[in-house]
């Protein structure tokens, strides 16, 4: 084909195919509803951030002290050692004196929650962890000595 004709045909092709694409863009612009959710100000009436995530969302860890049997399985399962537990045995009762979860280090992999035999450690839907001091993200679940639960009493699995 003539080089000049080829040149102009190319331009004509570019224009027609671009218009075909632009039609789709135009259709979306005019017809399709906006899907953007303005976080965190306009999530919807009465909704909080926890409502917009899935049921299985892996957020901050939550500990139910009534269920914790102090077995330390979660601490051993954690690949990055962000859980610290101390259990002291005083007068035949095992007391939980420390259960710290460093949420700043946590990578929310879920291995600890799977290991927990009594479902004491679960994920919450909370994920907004912005704060001014990194130490605030180290969540101390136990403030004073707490007696640990018996597995037979709390076992749900």
């Amino acid at each position, binding site marked *: 084909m003539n080089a000049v004709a080829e040149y102009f045909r*190319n331009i004509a*092709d*570019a224009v027609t*195919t*671009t218009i*075909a*694409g632009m039609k*789709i*863009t135009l259709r979306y612009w005019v017809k399709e509803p906006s*899907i953007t959710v303005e976080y965190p100000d306009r999530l919807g009436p009465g909704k909080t951030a926890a409502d917009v*995530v*899935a*049921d*299985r*969302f*892996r957020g901050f860890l939550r500990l139910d002290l009534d269920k914790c049997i102090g077995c330390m399985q979660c601490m051993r*399962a*954690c*690949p990055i050692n962000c859980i610290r537990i101390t259990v002291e045995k005083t007068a035949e009762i095992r007391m939980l004196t420390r259960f710290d979860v460093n949420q700043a280090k946590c*990578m*929310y*992999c*879920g*291995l600890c929650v*799977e290991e927990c035999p009594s479902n004491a450690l679960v*994920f919450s839907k909370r994920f907004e962890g912005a704060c001014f001091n990194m130490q605030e993200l180290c969540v101390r679940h136990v403030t004073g000595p707490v007696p640990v639960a018996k597995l037979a009493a709390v076992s749900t699995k």
Partner: protein
Amino acid sequence: MSKYSTQEMVLNMGPHHPSTHGVLRFILQTDGEMMVKATPDIGFLHRGIEKIAERVTWQGFMPYTDRIDYVASVNCNLGYAVAVERLAGVAVPEKAEYLRVIAAELSRIASHFIGFGALLLDLGAVTPFVHALRERETFNDLIEMLCGARLTHNYVRIGGVAQDLPPGFAEKCRAFVDHLEYEFVEEFNELISFNTILINRLANVGVISAETANDYTLTGPNLRASGVAFDLRKDESYSIYDRFDFDIPVGRGKYGTLGDSYDRYFIRIEEVVQSCRIIRQALDRLPQDGEIRTKLPKLFTVPAGEIYVRTECPRGELGFYVISDGKKNPFRIKIRTGSFSSMTIIEHISQGVMVADLVAIIGSLDVVAPEIDR
């Protein structure tokens, strides 16, 4: 010496260039607008994952495999799980295999969206990128329903998967793949794939022949775009991929030479359709009940030995070379990724192209920086 002399100029592209897919650096030797050579400089995202593996438990390394290729985490999880299971002789329940395939293929689709979406973004077409990411958002919602995280999924476990399908997932997933196969792909092709400007930009750029691709151990879609029909899901089947009916798309040189950037771009769109077919079959045949995870002993150890297992990731072969000495943590894990192979060929095919075409070549090879460095 004449008044005007020509000399080669050395330019740095990156490590923060937005079109280099992560923190990558290229040292360009240019002669005007033409490129003499582009040398990739890798290692900016090296995190020592292989070394970390030696001090975490077998199961504890699973979250780290998410970070090998964070765009397609489930595929990396699956590769590692298959390697350890073969070495330890752990059987995987039937249902878990189906769930793995569903999650892995969804992940592959999402990864290809980033792959061709980012290529188009590099070339200046912002709208198709947004269309691709809109579909990826549905995938994010699905995988969040399934395993609770949107990026680092950590879904596969040694001997099974983490969780069963949530109620309503199957219907949503089916609607998603139907929408992709019957609506989205057609619309997307009309929007950009058949656009003459894009074709002229990609066709005949960065041509890789089948021999060159083999020489540089190119894998995955990049190899198939050069006309070699090699897919580990079919040729060296792992998990239960041999039970599904799907085609291996290969490059055809539709608008230019076989193995050019356009072939590498278009093959990813075709693979999305094939993944949709696999997911639909897997959802149809998914057993309703049954175990999703083999019970492993509390102190899981792997018998001493070594194994190399390669699986098909969206960016090519992902190989895990696992050595165990019978303890509770791996003795050594070597990871071989597809992006690494893709990276080595850039120096070869960038000779004599224009600087603007290099962006197209890098984008079409679909490299992800953390996968190169690990």
